[in-house]
């Protein structure tokens, strides 16, 4: 009787520890969901009250941002456009550089070149954004200002340039993953048909990895849209709709970072800053969802399943 009980208890013990481990890891996995939910709830709770003070259209379409005046003006169109143009500019730099380097590393480079270049590109991702910002503010901006004879170096162009460099590792490593997904048999088949390396690359590998590469680009966009410290330091910070590449801008993230510390908790200004955060969140959410959708479809297409 006792023996049976013993055996049963070791079994249940095993079962128990397994269950505990399972639930611990499950809890850890779900905790990020919890955090996300918390963030969403707070964003909506603190952001929506701004519409007590301004209408949605006035908020998104208004051209003037004077949060501390009497009466205040909460128009974030210049901020949205600041983010928009900086992102476009940065992608013009990050996409060719990132995808180009991914193609080179994955398809052309030999083992030794890859062993040398890949850690360097990854190192770019490890540099804190404030260091980029400092570099841009103290070295690049004055240099560009003298080189191009523009009135001020802290502008849309400088911000785009630095953010573009910052996004290269994101785009590059994701695009490389996408190239990795292309089955070797595709390349072999292409070579067997007599295509040379260039033809294989352009006509077979890139189209096959196409949606993976677009995912890389979209996630690169998310990275740039959310970047804060760098744009706070190098974008200039003028809340105007830019008319040229060399005018200062004030992206949404920089605006929140600059003003949140001094906005009175619970005031209209405070809620307006959360409102901007809410819009930023929605933008990155949409981008990430698109990336996820494209990525899923493309994995199925290549026969990798989900």
């Amino acid at each position, binding site marked *: 009787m006792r023996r049976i009980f013993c055996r049963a208890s070791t079994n249940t013990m095993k079962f128990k520890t397994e269950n505990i481990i399972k639930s611990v890891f499950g809890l850890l996995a779900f905790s990020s969901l919890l955090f996300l939910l918390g963030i969403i709830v707070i964003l909506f709770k603190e952001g929506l009250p701004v519409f007590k003070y301004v209408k949605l259209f006035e908020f998104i379409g208004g*051209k*003037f*941002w*004077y*949060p*501390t*005046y*009497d009466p205040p003006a909460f128009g974030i169109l*210049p901020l949205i456009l600041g983010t928009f143009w900086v992102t476009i500019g940065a992608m013009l730099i990050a996409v060719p550089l990132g995808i180009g380097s991914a193609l080179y590393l994955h398809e052309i480079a030999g083992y030794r070149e890859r062993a040398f270049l890949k850690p360097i590109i990854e190192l770019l991702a490890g540099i804190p954004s404030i260091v980029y910002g400092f570099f841009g*503010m*103290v070295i690049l*901006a*004055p240099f560009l*200002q003298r080189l191009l004879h523009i*009135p*001020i*170096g*802290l502008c849309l162009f400088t911000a785009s340039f630095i953010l573009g460099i910052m996004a290269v590792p994101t785009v590059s490593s994701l695009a490389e993953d996408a190239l990795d997904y292309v089955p070797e048999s595709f390349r072999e088949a292409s070579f067997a048909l007599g295509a040379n390396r260039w033809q294989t690359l352009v006509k077979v590998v890139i189209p096959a990895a196409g949606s993976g590469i677009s995912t890389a680009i979209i996630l690169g966009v998310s990275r740039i849209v959310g970047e804060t410290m760098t744009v*706070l*330091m190098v974008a*200039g*910070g*003028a*809340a*105007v709709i830019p008319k040229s590449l060399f*005018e*200062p801008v*004030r992206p949404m993230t920089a605006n929140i*970072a*600059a*003003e949140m*510390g*001094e*906005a*009175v*908790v619970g005031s209209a*200004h405070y809620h307006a800053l959360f409102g901007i955060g809410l819009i930023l969140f929605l933008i990155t959410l949409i981008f990430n969802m698109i990336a996820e959708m494209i990525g899923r479809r493309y994995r199925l297409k290549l026969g990798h399943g989900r």
Partner: protein
Amino acid sequence: MKLSKVLIGIAIISSLVMAKENNKISIEGSTTVLPIAQIAAEEYMMANPDVDITVRGGGSGVGIASLIEGTCDIADASRSMKDKEMKTAVNKGVNPVAHVVAMDGIAVVIHPSNKLKEISKEQLKAIYTGKYSNWSKLGGAKKKIIVISRDSASGTYEAFSKLTLGGERVRPDALLSASNRAVVTTVENTPGAIGYVGLGYITEKVKAIDVDGIQCTKESILSGEYPLSRPLFMYTNGNPRGQVKTFLDFVKSKEGQKLVEESGYVGLK
């Protein structure tokens, strides 16, 4: 055994709480005065570990309102109380007493290559509200003025706008820098720039110009002669007593005024 530990714990905590109950100072108000209050509170608590000081920002108006409501002991303010606030205070039986703890002076800085030596308050206003956009309007070279301001929530901005703009909006294309240091760095690197910073932030690489013919120095700020200067206050309800009094005495002491200078303001001594 466990129970006794818990009981001891409760006893310790409650004695701590009770001891601190009488030695609590709560400070609230202007973000301009905040750095002074913060560093003074830290130093004071270091020397008097049994005193607990909480410091909060919120703005002059918020601090004064809290003082009137009785929810804080000291209200920081970068302006004197408005008549309306005074009336509310008197109606509630509160007797606000002002203590000047420091002077705030704002220097106007330009790039050293700029020949301009002085500027009037009207010219400053014209530049910052968008009426003047070229240095030729002030007799300088034909060059675009790069206007650098601070974020509209900052204390320096608030002071500058009150002292020169008279409630008018800063031109929308002004660059809004996040700190005094950033303003100086930008002006250093930009020949056409104009900016304003606290006196303590001037470097050799920028040129501070006279305003209305008066140089921005410690003396001209202390005498109130310099146009872009103002006193900074701490308000108490009635004459301060107990810990509040010792704390205020500390802020006004030589040691406290040294902390004021460290925070970038002009000390009274």
